[in-house]
């Protein structure tokens, strides 16, 4: 009767189990937090390194550059663009594939802000290799380096001769992920197709509209038609429009125009400065118009009027007293 077969435990045991459980829970909590902060640190460092790598890629007097960057792990890069401030900024966040969680991605690390770089890309790109395509933007003086970032394969279908030559000159199998094909059916199914004639079943359609005397090709300016809308481009902005989302493209155009505005003002001041030394330039009126147009630009559709005044300035900027 007395044996009730109950498990008898002393208080010491109960106390040890309770405190032990608390210690294990705390240990698991701190370990999980440590892993999380480790990922955060790694992702922030990767974003900083990526932005650092971009600095030497900027062009000096070259016409363009292409570069491939190989990442250690499968990585997702988030590109944000902000217009706020004197020059606006691009913000980069990086997230690596979760090595323990199968298909998932780790939480992005801290964002790295860059004011002096103009990064054109889709809002999010992912892959183990990231490709860069750098072209200077001239309006008519060099105002910025357009840094196009992509990871997907792009297939240019029957591009005009000058674009084909430029792409072939800038890129090769190692530093680009661009194919040039004569027909759309020759492109890989997974690639983003870029066509230069409307009416085709392409992901991106480029329509040229440059007909003035200053145009070397009809594609010197025009429109890029994509799923997320139409983007107007001039000159080197063609590639930026093809490879980036409308949101990033329009924001970066706004940032570049802020810089064109400041540079125009600088050249107006310079023209006054050198005229004292007998170097008259006669460009002040046109530069003032360019400054006003770039300051008030609302979206990329205004680029055509900026191109027109830029061409005018370029034609006048000749001789020993040229400004740029």
């Amino acid at each position, binding site marked *: 009767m007395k044996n009730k077969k109950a498990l008898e435990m*002393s*208080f*010491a045991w109960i*106390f*040890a189990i309770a*405190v032990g459980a608390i*210690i294990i829970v705390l*240990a698991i909590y*701190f370990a999980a937090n440590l892993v999380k902060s480790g990922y955060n*640190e790694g992702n922030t*460092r990767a974003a*900083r*390194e990526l932005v*650092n790598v971009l*600095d*030497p890629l*900027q*062009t*000096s*007097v070259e016409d363009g550059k292409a570069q491939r960057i190989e990442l250690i792990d499968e990585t997702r890069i988030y590109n944000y663009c902000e217009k706020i401030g*004197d*020059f606006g900024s691009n913000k980069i966040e990086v997230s690596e594939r979760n090595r323990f969680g199968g298909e998932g991605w780790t939480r992005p690390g801290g964002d790295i802000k860059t*004011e*002096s770089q103009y990064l054109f890309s889709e809002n999010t790109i992912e892959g183990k290799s990231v490709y860069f395509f750098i072209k200077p933007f001239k309006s008519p*003086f*060099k*105002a*910025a380096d357009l840094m196009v970032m992509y990871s997907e394969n792009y297939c240019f279908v029957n591009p005009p001769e000058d674009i084909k030559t430029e792409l072939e000159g800038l890129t090769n199998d190692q530093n680009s992920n661009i194919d040039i094909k004569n027909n759309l059916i020759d492109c890989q199914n997974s690639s983003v197709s870029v066509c230069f004639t409307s009416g085709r079943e392409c992901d991106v359609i480029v329509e040229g509209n440059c007909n003035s005397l200053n145009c070397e090709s009809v594609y010197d300016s025009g429109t890029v038609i994509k799923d997320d809308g139409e983007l107007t481009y001039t000159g080197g902005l063609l590639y930026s429009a093809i490879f980036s989302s409308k949101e990033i493209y329009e924001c970066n155009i706004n940032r570049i125009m802020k*810089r064109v505005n*400041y*540079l125009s003002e*600088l050249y107006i*001041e*310079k023209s006054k*400065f*050198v005229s004292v*030394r*007998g*170097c008259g330039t006669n460009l002040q009126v046109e530069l003032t118009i360019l400054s006003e147009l770039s300051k008030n630009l609302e979206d990329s559709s205004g680029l055509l009027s900026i191109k027109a005044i830029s061409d005018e300035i370029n034609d006048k900027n000749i001789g*020993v*007293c*040229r400004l*740029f």
Partner: protein
Amino acid sequence: MQTFLKMEHKKLSKKAQLKIQQMSFMLIAVFILFALVGLFYLSYKALNLQKEVIELRKEKTQALVTKIASTPELIYESRANSIDADKLMLLRGEEKYKEFWGIEGIIVQKIYPVTENSECRVSNYPDCSTIKLFTQSNSAPISSFISLCRKDSNNGRIYDKCELARIMIEISDDVEFNYE
């Protein structure tokens, strides 16, 4: 008999209390040990992080001089490694470029031909030797040699005058650098 039982119960209770105390001390000791290991690990990580920050900033600064020298605001007529002295003079006081370039200041010092050592102002330009942007320092740790160019005239004939100069970049020094 009752007194004996009471005494025995008291003895057992004291023994149990002692055991609980022993266990508590042991658990506290284990806890302190874990906390110490954790602290040691965190300080080690913090030290490593500081080293990495220095490395990353070093990487950035190495490319900075080349970048600044070829920036559209300073380059002279799209010539590689040439800086426009007139533009430099006009950019003095344009503080917005400090954050844009991520620098604290720029010092450009003419080296050849040798001229009287004086800071350039509107009143003495171009007969001066040093142009300073956003700083009053006379030197900075990161430097490179460049051509400092401007338009000049000789008997009414305009020409490009370029002189050998040294560009020095001052950066924020919240992290100490060791240059080897």
